[in-house]
């Protein structure tokens, strides 16, 4: 089956540094990818490049086998949707109005949102626990509620491939898990690519991992192959240790090893 997303020899510059250089990536239905890397390495830039809203320096990106550069933007938006790191709201709009904009790529230019679109939006708001807030102004919500509203908007967009830029931003622990559970429950017939800062969430919710290391180097593979102490310690430049918990490994920053010793030792 054709992968949903393919990147071929992709190079992306972010802030004068390479986020990736000659990256080959293939994301198929049912896969859940985690992207990890230090701050400023270019995770967001890569993600924006993958859905065609950021210029790439070289290479090609294909959605369902077709080059994204040759696709209509609306068409691409039905295949791939993006959860942004932060949302902007300069002007007031209600929670329902905000969720409804996710329908944009599905509604022909000359039509209005139908009752069916509204039903889809209400359903998504219910799924993220924002029922009853439809008439509230979005800019009066708390940071975590806004995050869930952004997720609802993405659920309303209903793409086949979800690109999630730090989906757990602003969320408390329970909502982090609820959000990722919700996304994972949809992953069977979709695909997820998420930028995460917590290797434990990657361990729990991802089956494949892409590490952005430095100077455009990347490392990818299955969770089992990639997520380990050596790789993570190298990635973060800080000793990472694991313990085995009842449901898998638990990663943590190991204070007992001095960071200076690590550079000499593991790398």
């Amino acid at each position: 089956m054709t992968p949903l997303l393919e990147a071929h020899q992709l190079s992306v510059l972010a802030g004068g540094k390479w986020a990736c250089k000659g990256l080959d990536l293939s994301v198929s239905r049912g896969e859940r990818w985690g992207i990890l890397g230090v701050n400023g390495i270019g995770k967001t830039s890569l993600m924006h490049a993958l859905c065609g809203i950021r210029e790439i320096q070289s290479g090609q990106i294909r959605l369902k086998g077709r080059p994204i550069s040759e696709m209509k933007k609306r068409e691409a938006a039905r295949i791939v949707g993006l959860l942004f790191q932060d949302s902007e709201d300069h002007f007031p709009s209600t929670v329902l109005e905000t969720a409804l904009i996710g329908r944009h790529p599905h509604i022909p230019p000359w039509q209005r949102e139908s009752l069916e679109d509204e039903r889809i939006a209400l359903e998504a708001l219910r799924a993220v626990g924002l029922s009853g807030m439809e008439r509230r102004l979005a800019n009066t919500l708390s940071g975590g509620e806004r995050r869930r509203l952004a997720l609802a908007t993405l659920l309303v967009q209903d793409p086949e491939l979800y690109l999630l830029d730090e989906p757990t931003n602003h969320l408390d622990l329970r909502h982090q898990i609820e959000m990722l559970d919700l996304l994972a429950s949809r992953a069977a017939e979709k695909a997820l690519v998420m930028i995460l800062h917590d290797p434990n969430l990657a361990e729990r919710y991802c089956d494949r991992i892409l590490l952005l290391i430095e100077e455009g180097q990347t490392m990818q593979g299955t969770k089992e192959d990639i997520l380990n102490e050596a790789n993570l310690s190298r990635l973060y430049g800080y000793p990472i240790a694991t313990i085995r918990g009842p449901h898998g490994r638990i990663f943590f920053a190991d204070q007992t090893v001095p960071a200076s010793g690590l550079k000499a030792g593991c790398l």
Partner: protein
Amino acid sequence: MKSGKKLLLALMLVAAASMVLALMSGSVKIGWQAIPGSGLDHELLLHLRLPRAVNAFTTGALLALAGALMQVLLRNPLADPYVLGISGGAAVAALSAMLVGLESTGTSIGAFLGAMLSMLLVFGLSGFDRHSRLLLTGIVVASGWGALITLILAVAPDGELRGMLFWLMGNLDNSSSPYPGLIALILGLMLSLPLSRDLNILARGDILASSLGVSVKRLQFSIYLICALLTSVAVMTAGSIGFVGLIVPHGLRRMGGHDHRILLPGAAFLGGSLLLLADTLARTVVAPQQLPAGAIMALIGVPLFLYLLRRKP
């Protein structure tokens, strides 16, 4: 009926009422029977009051519509139609035309060209890559025009000064033709309404809009051109009238008009009504003397806007 449609309907009624009020008010009492008839009343109503009322309404509508568009384009709630130095450019050209002794038609055409020139200048200098740069370029260019205006006023002969000052304050009594304004308003609404849904999304950020399938660059360029047309015609018709373009879109948003499908036509109706009422007051309060409509507009607008701002949405 949904609340947006109700709002729009109410604004249409307000517009109609202010038009009736404008036509009925004046130093001579005229009844409706004058419309089909002939004679002085008929002349007065159809050839003096009506064109002026139409001009006031369309100018207010053009500015409010342009303001609503400009605020989304720059995603800055402080943007108004003049923010890109448009009124300054128009004023410099219009005052220069007065200085060299051109009549009102020449002044109007000068204003139109000056507004267009200023927009092109700001656009050319900043491009579209950064909103902050576009806005800042506009503000800096506007300051430059401000300096030129001061210089022109300083060297202008005394006889011209009063006309110039009135032009700068916004003036509707030069009885220019109502057609350019009407055509620009209809054209502006026809061009911008189909973009409304895209605008709703653009208001939430370029990259979000882009990820939802909006062709952002093309949309921004279209808004820019529409704004240029609307504002230039407004300036040509009535000089520079501040305030309408800034407060009308905000007022409507606070009344629940978030959706641009309601906001754009709503802004046209409300902006038109406000300026028409202001102009009616301007020419009747201390008749036969006429006050500058722009100043009256601000006098009505300030308390109204402050009230809206304090009211819970």
